[in-house]
């Protein structure tokens, strides 16, 4: 799609139909399930979805395609030519572009600067922005993206940032686009926009590999769907021939867990009471503005919202990590002036947003990770009671089904889902009164998700109050007794999960209502 490309191109797109052909790819890779004998043909100018649970081997496969890993055996053919990628730059040169789940953009540079970063067009060694601007404009128009090239990235929303990432990859001449969980950060309306752009891209001849575990989206956007389970391809199907349930069964290999109605009742006692909570910020809008709510015993309140609308700061405020205005009461007692330790001692627990950043010490063993936050109880005098700590960790492993050879391995060897189960287990182990659960199942597989949900429900039935912060609307709708929507630091709506739909939630979440 770019005439300037120096890469030799096939004269006719019809010469080879399979733009990407993976044959018998195997890769043993530490800590995650290996790819076993994966074969995959991807037709030119189609959207090919790859679905599977987290840890099923999708990411490994894409990393192999993108040159980040080399397969132990098997071949990769691009446009019918067998190739080997030793690095991402070789893959890029062959026309493969990857849009990562986590954006890699420089906040202070403009859209245009970000797009050309790393492949800046120069004339006589001097940056020539004019040509670049025209090419980027053309690219954007051709896929129906409207964006101001001179805005700094920091002014853009998540959806637009993603568009910049896509343009960046296209600018480098990518004809095969790998999108890793592209909709994970988007609200339903943004997802629709993205899909419009993707269809135009395909119409222009680009081939798209769409990695996802959101089945509805996969069904609506793809031309072909390949299901991967435990490192092997289970099936490649057409979206017309399957439905959601069938696809899910292919993915999990067994019956799906269902949400189910709760049989217990919400209690009478208020365990967490928040009044006029404001988190102050210097030189910008307060991230949390005048938020009030109560959570009763045995109740789950879901906070729905697009990331970055104050949920994170709200959690930090409840935990006592930032200065606040307003009051926080825990179990009927004022906790506004307590520090983190004291609040945790009052029965608060926190499943953090990002298990790697806020939850785990990756280089430390599982039992030490399980000990974090419980060192006061698991010690004898001033010394850590190693035996008790290990036993407590083994109990977490047992109860939450953490797949690990023992409690002595370092945390980095576990898969994401098992790491999350450990973090959840650590925080539920002491039967807290109030749990703040931020994205408790983000990026983990269906099986682990069901396990986490089950444990949260079980603790709720035993009387625990839960503040559930999640961007996964299905989770919010399925677990909550009440839903609060957070937009721009404020609570913009209180909804009943029985009558709310993802579409309604999406509207409140984007401030359209």
């Amino acid at each position: 799609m770019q005439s300037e490309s120096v890469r030799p191109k096939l004269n006719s797109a019809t010469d080879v139909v399979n733009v990407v052909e993976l044959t018998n790819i195997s890769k043993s890779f530490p800590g995650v399930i290996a790819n076993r004998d994966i074969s995959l043909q991807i037709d030119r100018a189609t959207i090919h979805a790859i679905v599977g649970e987290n840890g099923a081997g999708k990411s490994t496969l894409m990393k192999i395609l993108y040159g980040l890993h080399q397969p132990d055996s098997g071949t990769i053919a691009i446009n019918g030519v067998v190739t080997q990628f030793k690095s991402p730059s070789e893959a890029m040169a062959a026309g493969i572009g990857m849009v990562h789940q986590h954006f890699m953009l420089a906040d202070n540079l403009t859209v245009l600067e970000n797009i050309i970063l790393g492949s800046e067009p120069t004339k006589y060694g001097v940056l020539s922005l004019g040509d670049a601007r025209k090419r980027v404009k053309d690219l954007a128009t051709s896929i129906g993206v409207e964006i101001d090239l001179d805005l700094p990235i920091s002014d853009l929303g998540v959806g637009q940032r993603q568009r910049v990432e896509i343009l960046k990859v296209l600018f480098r001449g990518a004809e095969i686009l790998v999108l890793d969980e592209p909709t994970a950060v988007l609200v339903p309306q943004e997802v629709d926009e993205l899909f419009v752009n993707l269809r135009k891209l395909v119409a222009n001849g680009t081939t798209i590999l769409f990695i996802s575990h959101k089945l509805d989206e996969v069904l609506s956007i793809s031309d072909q769907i390949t299901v991967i389970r435990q490192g092997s391809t289970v099936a490649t199907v057409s979206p017309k021939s399957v439905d959601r349930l069938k696809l899910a069964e292919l993915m999990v290999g067994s019956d799906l867990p269902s949400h189910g109605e709760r049989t217990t009742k919400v209690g009478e006692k208020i365990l967490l009471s928040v009044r006029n909570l404001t988190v102050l910020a210097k030189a910008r809008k307060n991230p949390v503005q005048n938020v009030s709510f109560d959570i009763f015993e045995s109740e789950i309140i879901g906070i729905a919202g697009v990331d970055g609308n104050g949920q994170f700061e709200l959690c930090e405020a409840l935990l006592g990590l930032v200065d606040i205005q307003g009051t926080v009461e825990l179990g009927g007692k004022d906790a506004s002036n307590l520090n983190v330790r004291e609040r945790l001692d009052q029965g608060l627990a926190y499943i953090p947003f990002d298990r790697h950043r806020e939850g785990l010490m990756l280089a430390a063993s599982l039992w030490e990770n399980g000990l974090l936050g419980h060192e006061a109880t698991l010690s004898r005098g001033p010394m850590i009671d190693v035996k008790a700590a290990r036993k407590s960790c083994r109990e977490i492993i047992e109860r939450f089904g953490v797949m690990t050879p023992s409690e002595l391995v370092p945390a980095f060897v576990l898969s994401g889902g098992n790491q999350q189960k450990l973090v959840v287990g650590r925080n539920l182990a002491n039967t807290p009164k109030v749990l703040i659960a931020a994205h408790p199942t983000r990026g983990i597989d269906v099986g682990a998700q069901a396990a986490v949900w089950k444990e949260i429900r079980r603790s709720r039935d035993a009387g625990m109050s839960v503040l559930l912060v999640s961007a996964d609307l299905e989770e919010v709708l399925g677990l909550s007794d009440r839903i609060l929507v957070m937009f721009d630091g404020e609570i913009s709506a209180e909804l009943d999960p029985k009558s709310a739909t993802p579409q309604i939630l999406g509207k409140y979440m984007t401030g359209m209502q």
Partner: protein
Amino acid sequence: MNKQLDIHRNSDAMRKSLATLGSSLGAIFLALFICAVLLLVTGKDPLAAYGKILETGFTSDKFVEMLKRATPLIFSAIAVAIGFKMNLFNIGVEGQYLFAALIAAEMGTHVSLPAPLHVLFILVVAMVSGAAWASIAAFLKIVRGINEVISTIMLNYIALSFIQWLFETFFRDDSDGGLNVKTTKIAPSGRMPDLVHDRLNGMFIVALLVAFVFWIVVFRSRFGFRLRASGLNPIAARTAGIPASRMILVALMLSGAVAGLVAMPAVIGDVYGYGPSAIATQYGFAGIAVALLGRNHPLGIVGAAMLFGFLDSTSAELQLSGIPSSIVKVIQAIIVLVVVIVNEASSRRYNRRTAERAAMALKSLDARL
């Protein structure tokens, strides 16, 4: 099943220690090889130089001297390692120990206590002074967010000038005469007894004791766990209720307290006072190298300090036989560089292997179920 896992664990720990030791030894040999090349290039005979080092190093005299030279390095390296355990880079050991040396030497002359208490008093004063000086950097970091690397380096310069001023204005004692001015001599009750007459004093035992306490505190105590957690993932530690600023303060002050002991072998075991030319400098920086070489582990630090002490002890002899004694410093520097590089590579390899073994173990677990 648990029994099996325990075996798995013990062999695991053993494997890790062996891997660490192996990679460190390998790095040392590699460094020696690089130095040999350097010597060849400069027209010296590397075999003769190494021969001389071995020849002089392995006499019983030199063994004692090695222990003596290792003593301040052990203190200094442990001071650095305490900071490292929390990802704090205390480059200010230099200023902290010199400041502590002056204050402790001076205070030691103002009390009269029975022998063991007098010594103890001086050691405590030294630790408190070192901690106090280090706490400045801690406060700057907590209150203003100033990086401790910058502030501790700067505080070294301030310490040097401040010490000089204090010494010249208040503590200088000229009664001894001569050019080598010092503070007033510490009374015999405040002197550390010798282990080997005139060549090694009891501070060596104190150094080993400090290394042991370091191990207990950092690897076994609740405080040490919080310290390491704050180093491994400060945000996770904070979220789990470990107050970051208090940990920074305590860690830097502990580091400074141990740093305060660096000059004590000289102050109470040799010079019996403080004098600008009587107390050796540069131990603070050497300690960083020793801590790196010893991987911040007490055993490693003691071993690394011995190695450095051994090399140092041979430098005079080298000089006499026409080999530049600076080769010792070059060897030390190259060892540290190589060790840091090799450590990084081997810990990556170790991590990969650990992950692979865990995956294998899981697979066999799966198969059994």
